[in-house]
């Protein structure tokens, strides 16, 4: 709330300033850097439509940079395009092309370093190396940008929105395609990622490293190497996101690695090879998620304890849950399982027989992956049934004691 009021004041103050302070227009052959140098703090620089061949433009005073009809700034492969080195800078309505590709420096179209109160809104980035790179900054908004890259290999491509040591940044309504990571957070705190669409990225749609207390909500992650990777982070809230069509041998909808106290609520995982891959994740709450038609809905690897799965829908997955060991330290309760075959005599909507979500076949596939070709074979159904009757290989106490008869809406 305070954040919002703050930005409102910020935007209002910008509006007032544009009335009070000068507007500087830049036409095509002029230099943008020139205009910035001659401007006073708080001025608005309006860049007219055209192509500007300039690189490493330094914005070193509080300015509002507006583009008319998306003027193109072409860095001609010489370093950064725009460097924001001052507080209170707004950049909006530009198209950035030809950022230098480098193996030693992370060149980007917009580089923000050590500032407060910045806004990067409604810009277009075409084949950037990195698109937006933010370091050691606070109170920022990155919204409605379109970032489309042409990444093919991980080692020589960059991230869409890359943040390092930041806090209180809002990333909303961006569209990011074909980059290495769509959005990358490293040591980023108290930030939010909302309503973005991150597709066809070669590594992750969204990537968290060592970032605590963040929220991501209402995003779409489609056909990425892995939808979202959350690693070594605490207290992340993930709500209402859609993870779709992340296919491949190392592809996950959501990869959890060393995660503590996260909430995963109201998400949809659809047709991924592995919906959620949890490794060393503790005290994670899975609630009201939909798992539809995934290869594996949730795969628990080692050291996952104290997780709770409540009221999720597991529909038509080849495997609902896969476990490595024979110990269970997690709680499964009141989920809907489409494979459940029990009955409900007292008609309270809860099945009278506990459901065992791990099949013997999933244990076999973990051991010998090639056996996957026998999926849905009658013989496999028979051995699954016999394991269900008297469990030997799968964790004995892993049961949903209150399986629902109808899907959670």
């Amino acid at each position: 709330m305070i954040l919002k009021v703050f930005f409102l004041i910020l935007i209002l103050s910008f509006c007032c300033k544009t009335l009070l302070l000068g507007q500087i227009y830049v036409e095509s052959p002029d230099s943008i850097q020139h205009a910035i140098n001659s401007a006073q703090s708080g001025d608005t620089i309006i860049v007219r439509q055209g192509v500007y061949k300039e690189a490493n433009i330094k914005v070193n005073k509080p300015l509002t940079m507006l583009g008319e009809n998306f003027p193109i700034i072409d860095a001609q492969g010489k370093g950064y395009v725009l460097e924001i080195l001052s507080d209170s800078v707004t950049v909006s309505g530009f198209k950035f092309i030809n950022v230098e590709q480098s193996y030693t420096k992370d060149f980007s179209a917009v580089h923000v370093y050590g500032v407060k109160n910045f806004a990067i809104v409604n810009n277009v980035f075409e084949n950037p190396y990195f698109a937006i790179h933010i370091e050691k900054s606070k109170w920022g908004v990155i919204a409605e940008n379109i970032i489309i890259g042409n990444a093919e290999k991980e080692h020589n491509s960059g991230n869409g929105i890359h943040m390092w040591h930041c806090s209180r940044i809002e990333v909303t309504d961006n569209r990011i395609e074909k980059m290495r990571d769509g959005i990358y957070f490293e040591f980023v705190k108290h930030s939010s990622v909302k309503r973005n669409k991150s597709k066809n990225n070669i590594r992750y749609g969204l990537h968290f490293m060592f970032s605590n207390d963040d929220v991501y909500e209402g995003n779409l992650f489609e056909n990425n190497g892995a939808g979202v990777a959350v690693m070594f982070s605490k207290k992340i809230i993930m709500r209402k996101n859609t993870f779709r069509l992340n296919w491949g041998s190392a592809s996950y909808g959501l990869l959890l690695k060393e995660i503590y106290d996260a909430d995963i609520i109201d998400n949809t995982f659809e047709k991924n090879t592995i919906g959620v891959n949890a490794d060393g994740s503790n005290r994670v709450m899975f609630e009201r998620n939909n798992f539809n038609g995934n290869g594996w809905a949730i795969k628990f690897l080692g050291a996952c304890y104290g997780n709770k799965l409540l009221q999720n829908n597991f529909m038509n997955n080849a495997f609902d849950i896969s476990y490595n060991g024979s110990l269970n330290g997690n709680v499964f309760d009141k989920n809907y399982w489409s494979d459940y075959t029990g009955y409900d005599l007292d008609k309270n909507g809860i099945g009278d027989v506990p459901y065992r979500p791990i099949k013997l076949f999933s244990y076999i596939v973990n051991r010998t992956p090639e056996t996957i070709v026998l999926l849905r074979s009658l013989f496999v159904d028979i051995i699954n049934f016999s394991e269900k009757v008297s469990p030997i290989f799968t964790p004995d106490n892993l049961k949903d004691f209150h399986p629902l008869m109808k899907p959670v809406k």
Partner: protein
Amino acid sequence: MLKILKYGFFDLMRSRWSYIYFLFYLSLGFILLFLNQDVSKAVITLLNIILILTPLIGTLFGVMYYYNSREFTSLLLAQPIKRSNIFLGQFLGIGLSLSLSLVLGLGIPFLAYGLFQSTEIFNFFTLLLIGSFLTLIFLALAFNLALIFDDKIKGFGLAILTWLFFAVIYDGIFLIFMLMFDEYPLDKFALGATIFNPIDLSRILIILKLDVSALLGYTGAVFQNFFGTSFGMFFSLGLLLLWVIVPVIAIVVKSKKKDF
């Protein structure tokens, strides 16, 4: 041959077994859809039924029909008709009528429940195609067995054993084999072994459509190439066709040599 085909076809169309078979699929389709209301889920359930039932029915019908019409066949053999025409005609007559029962019996309920509005339409047709293929394959195998054994009991027993072998036992041996040798690279073996079982082959064809996300979970390059491209689909369809052609040729060869 056409005349005999027609005769075999109408003979079965008149018999009540064909109707029972048709009505069974019809009611199965309606009940499944009534209980599920969801075409895509019904398709998965149907997969299991088709993979088990169509081969069984094909085998039983084939053996039964051959032994029941043995006298009529002897009569036909006395006429100036080519032997291959007689047996191929009979084979195609039953095959067509059984496939028709399957396609109509399942097609009508699914059409009534809005198949054309569903995205599953292609999967459903693949399923019907595979069901027809399996009917033909097991019919041909049954004809072969019946041609070899004049003894009814022996023929019946072996036909059912053949079905049991392909439907269950084969996969069991296959699985045990893979678990025993799991230190070796098995991906080529795993794909190779499915070729020798038409039921496995059909299963792979269907799960290529339904569960491809799970199949891609395995890292092997051979699997990736096979399952990740349309090559796998065409390859298995071609093999299924081969599985029909080879036993049919065997019928022709055997019937020529047989002493009636």
